[in-house]
Every structure is written in structure tokens, then in C-alpha cells.
């Protein structure tokens, strides 16, 4: 079984899709000569040339705007925004333009593009380089949101994102780039909107996103030893959301913990929790417990950042809390 890193898996996805489809181009800051600040696009310039792997100025508005225009006119751009924080510069293009293009043109426009970005929480980057706010895009119908947690998922989901005819925001977890996992040699795709049950279990459902899936898996192992059998679900996509898989699990376990790296208030955990309550309330036999970041900007200090983040201890505590009921 072949093991490669999350970054390599992403690179393979890009390379395969670029080979497969001439319309796919890559653009962003440092994606070409430098191979990406986290080396995800390394080697692409050499293979595909500067026409298809395009270094841009520090112009986030234009990176996204150009990608949108190119998508309208027949290409399939993959635009990289170096840190998720910098999406805040391009929100007009992402939310007020791209997400609404198809709808407000009465279905005329098609804007098949992927915005790749990564959040750096956990890498001691401080308040302006650690933001994670996927919930914003729930409020902006018209763009899909993907949150891969493993090399396998990263590759399969990125390939599907590139083939999708809709705009896709593909949010990577910076801390995972060097993390290795099984990725087959053969080509495969993972459909957008299909959750993955990362671990089967009967007593409680842990729903975790992105980096937190790993923490959840470790917590699950420890809990198993304590005799608590948890099921770990990784929705993988926030939009579209595979509510069915979540619901089926909750029907089985009756207990839920939701884990994500965003700040608690208005987080994706609020939304997932409400969806569960609105759909399968009667099956719940304990409170839904949420494990998230607290309502603070991210502190730089390494010690404080660790305390700030969701981790396996906090997840275990949440699970045990649920079992008090």
C-alpha cells in the first residue's frame, strides 16, 4: 500500500486533471517558480509551462476575478489563495460575484472554478494567518465547500472539484500537508457531498471536520479502550452536506459530539447541530456537545495556541459529558 503526504496527494490530483483536461489551469501567488509556499504545486510549471501554471502578483481580488472570467469563457481555473485569511480580501469576488453568477443570470452562466486555500491554525502563525471560517459560505448559496482530512480524501475530492461545473471552495488544513496516508496508484474520484464514516461505532457519533478528524480518531481510540464505541463521521463537504449519513448514525447512537476548528459562535457546528435537531430530534438521548475554538482571535504564543485549539482531550471530555445524561 502506497503512502504519500497530503501535499503530494493534492499535487497528484492537480497533475492528473491537468493532463486529462487542457482547460485546467493553475494560478496564484508563488504557484509556479516557487512551487507553492507549501510545495503543493511543485513541478507543475516544469510539466505544463507558464501558460497553464501562472504566477500572479499579490492581488487576491484579481486572482479570483480572473479565475471567474476565465471560467465563464471556457477554462477550468484552479486559483490558489495562499492563506484562508486572504479570502477576506476577495470576498466580493467570491460571494457577491461568483456564487451568484449562475442564479442572477437566470441560469445562463457557468463558472467552473476551484479556489484552493489552506488554514494555518496549529502552526503558530498568529491571529491574521490562522483564521478558519467555513460557515461564512453557508450564507452564500452557489459555491460548494470541501474540507479534506486525509491524503486519500484530498486527492479524490480535489479531482472531483476540478471536474465539477460549479464553483468550489477547497479548504486544506495547513498542518496536514506533511501527514501521510494511503493513496492508491490507480485513479479514483470521491463524489462531492458524500460523507465518510472514518470509524464505525455504536454508542456515540462524533462528527468532525478537516484537521479535527484526526483528533477525533485519536479520541475514539482512547474511548474504545474505556469501553465507549464511537462512530467518527467526516462530512468531507460542507456544501453539499451529506445529512443522510449523519442522520443514520445519530439514529443508531442517539448521541452526538461535533468538532471543528472554527470559533464557536456561528460556527459550522451550530448549523450541523441544528440540522440534527430539526431532523432527528426524537432519536437524541443526550445533549449535542460542540468542541470548537473559543470566541477569541488566535493567540500567537505556541502554548496558548495549543490551549485554544480543539484536541483529543477536549473531545474525550465532551463525549464523557454527553454520557452523563
Amino acid at each position, binding site marked *: 500500500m502506497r503512502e504519500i503526504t497530503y501535499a503530494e496527494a493534492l499535487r497528484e490530483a492537480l497533475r492528473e486533471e491537468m493532463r486529462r483536461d487542457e482547460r485546467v489551469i493553475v494560478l496564484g501567488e508563488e504557484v509556479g517558480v516557487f512551487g507553492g509556499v507549501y510545495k503543493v504545486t511543485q513541478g507543475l510549471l516544469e510539466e505544463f509551462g507558464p501558460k497553464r501554471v501562472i504566477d500572479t502578483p499579490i492581488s487576491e481580488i484579481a486572482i479570483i476575478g*480572473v479565475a*471567474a472570467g476565465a471560467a*465563464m*469563457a471556457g477554462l477550468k481555473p484552479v486559483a490558489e489563495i495562499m492563506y484562508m485569511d486572504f479570502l477576506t480580501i476577495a470576498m466580493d469576488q467570491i460571494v457577491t460575484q461568483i456564487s451568484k453568477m449562475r442564479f*442572477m*443570470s437566470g441560469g*445562463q452562466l457557468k463558472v467552473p472554478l476551484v479556489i484552493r486555500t489552506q488554514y494555518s491554525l496549529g502552526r503558530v502563525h498568529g491571529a491574521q494567518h490562522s483564521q478558519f471560517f467555513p460557515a461564512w459560505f453557508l450564507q452564500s448559496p*452557489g459555491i460548494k465547500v470541501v474540507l479534506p482530512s486525509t491524503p486519500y480524501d484530498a486527492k479524490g475530492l480535489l479531482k472531483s472539484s476540478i471536474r465539477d461545473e460549479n464553483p468550489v471552495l477547497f479548504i486544506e488544513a495547513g498542518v496536514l500537508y506533511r501527514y501521510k496516508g494511503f493513496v492508491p496508484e490507480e485513479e479514483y474520484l470521491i463524489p462531492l457531498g458524500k460523507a465518510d464514516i472514518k470509524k464505525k461505532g455504536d454508542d456515540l457519533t462524533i462528527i468532525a471536520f478537516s484537521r479535527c478528524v484526526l483528533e477525533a480518531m485519536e479520541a475514539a481510540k482512547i474511548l474504545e479502550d474505556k469501553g465507549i464505541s464511537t462512530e467518527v463521521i467526516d462530512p468531507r463537504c460542507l456544501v453539499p452536506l451529506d445529512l443522510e449519513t449523519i442522520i443514520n448514525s445519530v439514529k443508531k447512537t442517539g448521541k452526538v459530539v461535533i468538532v471543528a476548528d472554527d470559533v464557536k459562535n456561528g460556527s459550522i457546528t451550530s448549523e450541523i447541530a441544528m440540522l440534527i435537531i430539526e431532523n432527528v430530534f426524537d432519536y437524541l438521548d443526550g445533549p449535542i456537545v460542540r468542541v470548537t475554538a473559543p470566541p477569541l482571535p488566535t493567540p500567537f504564543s505556541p502554548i496558548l495556541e495549543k490551549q485554544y485549539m480543539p484536541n483529543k482531550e477536549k473531545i474525550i471530555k465532551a463525549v464523557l459529558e454527553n454520557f452523563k445524561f
Partner: protein
Amino acid sequence: MSIQIYEGASLNSLKEDSVEILKKMLLIRIFEEKVEELFLVKGMLIGPSHLYLGQEAIAVGFCSNLKKEDILVTTYRCHGHAIAKGVSIKKLMAELFGKKTGTCKGLGGSMHAAIDVENGVLYATAIVGSGIPIAAGIALANKYQNKKLVTVCFFGDGAVNTGAFHEGLNIAALWRLPVIFVCENNFYAMSTHISKSMSSKSIAERASSYNIDVFIVDGNDVISVYNLANELIEKVRNGIGPFFVEARTYRMKGHGVYDPGLYRDKEEVKRWLERDPIKIYKDRLIKENILTEKDFEEIKLKITQEVEESIEFAVKSDYLDFNDLYNLVWV
């Protein structure tokens, strides 16, 4: 790069098109006057709407040189560009009424009504400046695919102060993209005169600092606009670009239909109204014996009729069913 004040008042080059051009300008004029009436007198339309009255020469001068497949990116002030590019006024009018027979099935409204992929109007945005990087992206795709297509991006003087303008122009110039940026400088952004919003001496000067060839043209003189557009479009079709045009013009009315425009000096308004682009051009055609006053009246009558029919069409059309909306968010 150079800044050139373009004057190309020769009628020769547009001979075949010359009456067509007048008709297009008139169609825009009469369409917009009717729209204004539908808002202000008849109360049949609501919401924001920004008329193209007084700027007709620019849209027509450019679009008369474009092919159907060539591409426009425009703004909320988009009716004139749409009509000049060949969008059906029935669909346009229906869009203003929010009907499902509209260009955008009634989901866009006046500010996006121009969007008509079939006729190459790929985008009309209501966010000032936002179309500029998008137009650059379209040009990039055309260049990449070796399509000999021309992209023309229209925007106003107010857009020049947005971050999107700066980032988009820089990239278009840096990558030498086949696109023409046309800034319709009507000297006002809402009530704000350009002297109150832009530090540079002129739009042309600012644009040329991006290392782009810039042309200043009288936007009320359709002959000059046409001739300039013809030259630039030819170049861009052959892969040379980008270009920037500052077309100086004036709104005949307020910013939007509800704005009486009282902030403008009366003398200034009067001076500009005397330079009505349709009147100037019509007089020229008559002087050159290409048209008679009678021809003109006939054309006007016919167009008025056509516009009335578009209203009838729009009024008779249905609204989309709400449930259909769910099918229009995603491909």
C-alpha cells in the same frame, strides 16, 4: 505608455454602418426614455435602474465593430451596451419587469439585464469595479484558447478608485491580454465629481501608468468612437493588447431613475445637452445627404413602435414559479 487624444471624425470608414448606427443610438434613447416613463410616470417598474441617456455614442461606436461572439463585460448601467450588442429589447424589457421571458428570467433585473450569453454579453455587475478583473480573465481564456475574440469592458469614472480596477489593470497589462477597457467618464459617480474622488490629473494618466496605451476620445461623437474602436478591435483581434479608452461624456439625467441630479451645475448641464450625441450625428448625416429629416422621423416612429411592443411583451409575460429558483443556483 502613450496617451493619445483621438480624433477621427471621418465618416468614410463607417459608410455602410452609418444609418444603422443612428438607428441603434435611437433605439437606446427611446428605450431608456420609455423605461424612465415606466418608472416615474406609469409606476409600472420598481427597483434601481440607471439609464444610458446621453452616452449612446460609446456603446454603439464600440459594438458596431464587434462580432456577435465578441464579449462585453458591463455594469448596472447596462441597457445601452446590451442593445448595441444586439440583445433583444423584448427580453431586456421583460427582465426589467422581472418576468421569466427576460434575459435573466427576471432574477437579475435592470442592473444585470444585459447578461445574454448568446449575444456575447457575459456579465453585468452592480458592484463598481468588480467587472475589471473578470474581463481580464475572459481575455486570458480567449488568448489561451487561441480564440480570436475581443473582450470589451465598460465601466465609469468612479470605478477608477477601486482596488479591483488597480489589480485588474495591472494583470491585464502585465500579461498583455486581448481586452479593451472603456472608461465612460461622465465626470460624476452619483453626485461626486471626479475632481473630488481621484488624485491623478486624469483617468488617462492613471491608466497609462500601468504601461498601457491609452486613448482619450469624445464620447459624444460616435464617429470618433467608431473609428477608434475599429482600430483597437482590429489590433486586439490579432492578439495585441490591452488598450484603455477614456471616453468623455455626460449623463443627460440623474444617476438612477429617481435622482433629479440637482448637484450638477445648470450651465454645465446645458452645455452638455447641446452636445447630444444623437443630435450631433443626425445633423452630420443630414448635412452629408445620407439622411433626411423625414427619414429620421420615420425611423423614430418605427423604433417607438418596437419599444412599445417590447413593453407589451413584457407585461404579458409570466413570472417564474418560485420553486424553479432552486434549479438555478447550481449547474
